[in-house]
């Protein structure tokens, strides 16, 4: 017969003692009777349920109903009983959880997994960077990998036979000799040709980022690959200044590497920007100290700074090539930047060999899942 909470009429200590003892022995009997999980759940519900559980009932029937002068005494008893009931039910639960072996499984065995594909780290980084600029209002564009001399060089202010072309180690498409130089095809050496292609199509103002594949005739080694990935950016408007260039890229660095990242801009040379700069980010490996513990920090060559990208104000000569579409260098100004995503990804994840990106090794790829 299940225990029923009696109404108290006698609030003498002896009567209280008796009521408490009855409750305790009923509790002990019910705890002992609860053998399996569902019975234990029922026990817990019966005693501890907020609505009409035994504890709630003694609170209502004993404590609330008690005369003023007995309240203190009854309150103490009720509190003691509450504690005892809760403890008894908890211990019962813990000790009996493993009781019915037939009903339990060894959940320390590994689970059944379903394969989930891993994002490629270079694509992941590309998406992160593109997203940062999308949030700043930049649109996204693409362009062909095989492009003409005109877009890759001439319209970017690399005149034919200019020594600056030497720095690009171009891979050329065969059998182009019969064409005029500007129409000859090559593998774009940077994503910058899409700057021109975009400005030909869209009038200012523009904000655009251009992710894509690029190629150069670099022999493959741990830090070089003939195929690599860049993200180009371009902002042109009536009043873009060098400070805007710096502010935008500083924002990107902080969004990508954390708000404590610092940036430094050093003068550089690119035919299609002027003034030109290289942006360095405070080394996110060593925090800018140049040291990792007692070892020198290799990624930043102990300088505390890592070069991340090239950038600059769009050279007026570049605007001349698209002047017809509203890019009069007297009226608009702008900035452009380009960064190697593979290199940034290597730095971000501490990858020491660029070849790992392109051989499909699942032991490598799955680390990015």
């Amino acid at each position, binding site marked *: 017969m299940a225990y029923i909470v009696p109404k108290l009429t006698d609030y003498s200590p002896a009567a209280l003692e008796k009521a408490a003892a009855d409750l305790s022995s009923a509790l002990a009997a019910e705890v002992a009777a609860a053998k399996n999980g569902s019975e234990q759940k029922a026990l817990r519900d019966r005693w501890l349920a907020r609505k009409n559980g035994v504890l709630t009932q003694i609170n209502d029937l004993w404590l609330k109903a008690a005369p003023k002068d007995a309240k203190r005494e009854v309150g103490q008893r009720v509190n003691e009983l509450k504690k005892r009931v809760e403890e008894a039910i908890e211990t019962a639960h813990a000790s009996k959880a493993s009781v019915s072996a037939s009903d339990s499984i060894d959940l320390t065995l590994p689970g059944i997994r379903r394969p989930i594909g891993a994002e490629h780290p270079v694509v992941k980084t590309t998406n992160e960077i593109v997203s940062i600029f999308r949030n700043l209002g930049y649109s996204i564009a693409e362009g*062909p990998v095989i492009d003409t001399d005109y877009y890759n060089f001439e319209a970017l202010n690399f005149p034919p036979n200019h020594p600056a072309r030497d720095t690009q180690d171009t891979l050329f*498409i065969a059998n182009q000799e019969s064409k005029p130089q500007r129409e000859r095809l090559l593998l774009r050496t940077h994503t910058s040709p899409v700057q021109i292609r975009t400005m030909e199509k869209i009038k200012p103002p523009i904000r655009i980022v251009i992710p894509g594949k690029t190629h150069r005739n670099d022999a493959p080694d741990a830090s070089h690959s003939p195929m690599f990935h860049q993200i180009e950016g371009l902002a042109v408007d009536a009043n873009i200044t060098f400070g805007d260039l710096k502010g935008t890229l500083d924002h990107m660095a902080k969004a990508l590497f954390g708000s404590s990242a610092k940036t430094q801009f050093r003068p550089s040379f690119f035919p299609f920007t002027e003034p030109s700069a290289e942006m360095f980010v405070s080394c996110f490996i060593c925090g800018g100290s140049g040291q990792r513990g007692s070892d020198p920090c290799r990624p930043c060559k102990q300088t505390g700074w890592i070069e991340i990208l090239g950038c600059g104000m769009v050279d007026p000569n570049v605007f001349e090539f698209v002047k017809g579409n509203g890019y009069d260098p007297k009226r608009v100004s702008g900035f452009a930047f380009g960064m190697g995503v593979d290199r940034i990804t290597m730095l971000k994840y501490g990858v020491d060999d660029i070849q790992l990106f392109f051989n499909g090794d699942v032991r490598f790829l799955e680390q990015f899942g």
Partner: protein
Amino acid sequence: MKLSPDWIRDFVSPTADDLRLAEDLTSIGIAVEGMSGAGADLVYEMEIGTNRPDAMNHYGVAREAAAFYDLPLKPVHPALPAAKHGAGIPITIEDPQGCARFTARVLRNVTIKPSPEKIVHRLSLLDQRPINNAVDATNYTLWEIGKPTHVFDLDLLEGGKIIVRRARAGETLKTLDGIERKLTTEDLIVADARKPVGLAGTMGGFDTMITGKTRNILIESAWWDPATVRSMSRRHGLHTDASHRFERGADFESTILSCDRVAEFILDSGGGELVGGVVDVIARNLDQAPIELRMSEVRRILGSTVDSTQVARLLRKLGFELLAGAGEDSEFMVGVPSWRLDVEREIDLIEEIARLHGYDKFPNTLPAFVGAVVETPDAKKDETLRSSLLALGYNETLSLTFISHEEAEAFADAPVVELANPQSEEASVMRTSLVPGMLNMLAYNLNRGMDSVRLFEAGAVFHAEGRGTTEPKQICLGATGSANMPSVHEKARPLSSYDLKGDVETLLENFQHKSLQYEAGAGDYYHPGRSARVLMDGAAVARFGQLAAEMAATRKIRQDIYIAEIYLDQLYKHGLRNILYRPLPKYPAVERDFSFIFDDSIVFEGIQRAVGDLRLSDLQSFVPAEIFRGGSIPAGKYSLLLRAMFQSAERTLRDDEVAAWSGMIIKVLEKLGGTLRAS
């Protein structure tokens, strides 16, 4: 390029130590990329942009340091003895475009011997091999003030004169490196009365070089046209320290200074005497007109950080001359120093101001912008497929874009795009298919003991088309090994073409279409009986299946490989499926099973079509539930359990209706050649 800070300090005396000096130079664009050695032998590894030939030497870098620290720059003043009276050598410039200026001096009775220790030491620091006092004098001068010069054995110049001209057809010149070079009429040369004696600005002739026997010397210091030198040095595959500087523009005003400096070094070490005055022939002057600089333009590009006083001060420090401008403080006319041929425009001056002022002093700002973000046209479709593939368990990959001719032949019919200068035969054409790259990646993993692999790559392939190229995008899936992740709980289930089909279906379901058909046999490198081509509304959008055995064998792959190719240019003609809510069914569904025996020649598609043609409006699905061969089933036949599900959106279906429809299904399947086993 190596430079010595100790040598730089010959001309400027900053208090900064070598480390600090390196940082400060780097901050104004004269980049010190690394350092080696110690003390006075410390050497900077410099990275100087192609536009700054003026800073590719010690004096030039000292000039930048002087500007940065606002310190005086010690000039180079060669101390020459009084010249003996004698005839100078006549110089004729026949090509003023190619050679704007030619300056020469004659030294007689010189002793050729090793250079003094200081010169040997400094050249060695820069990895320059010391040769003899005359040649080292030109080298030292090049590294000191940046002007390439050349010394001839005067007695080996025939006819006592110098002519600067284009080479004649058939002429040859053995250059200092010992190579006999055929000259073309485009080559600009230094010649004596009879023969070529030097390739202009690139390399001198072997037969007129300084030797131990040389007594009399002609020093040449010329200004050569950059484009002429560049095309010549490229034509002859001859890139020298001299051509490197002339290609980028040498200092027109330094020909006499450099000539004198070389003479000074040779006379100091080798004795002898200076004969006659300097011979200085100017064929044309360079046009270095003053440039207009407007403060409004400075502000437009840089912001308002620098005022006109600062602008004037910064430019003067770099050797620019501030001439009277029209608008007092708001406009300047700026004279450009002879060593800065790279400064031609107002923007070039603005860059000079910015870099010397210090890039980091310009406050960071963010430009305001009102406009919409425009994604690439296929961004949503790309992302839909990519996230589906990741969820299906395929790892994302990127592989190299080059393949071999052989692979191009084996994997695509499309006309190839060939490279003119490939790195190897294996990488000589642009990929026409993603499959060879995928097979390489799968093999790479199998060779390393990873036997269950699922990969995908999304990217362009390249086709020649007319005079141009196209770059259609594709997705390639590659899978091998088990379909599940085997564990203590379940055994490995080997992948099959049906797994690939399921994945392809999942991907294609994202797109709007009326019909999907699977045609047996994907062709080419696929297993003919275990592959299919997928037609969406009649057009091929994909193919998939098992890789042909011989194809796997040539790659030494021993387990079954499954691939799928999706042609995105075709698929993306379809829009993404519009998602529109349909009310859930209110009335119960009725299922009926039919067990049939069919001849092997009857494929499921035929069964499906036959039942579909009945156009039973309340038939919601008709699927194969079990398939069985062997046992009591005769050879050449198979047993198929088919399951039909009927449901109406308007009412509960009656038994007699369902029975009638079932009868129709049985009839049509019997007509197809099936035998009903039981129902």
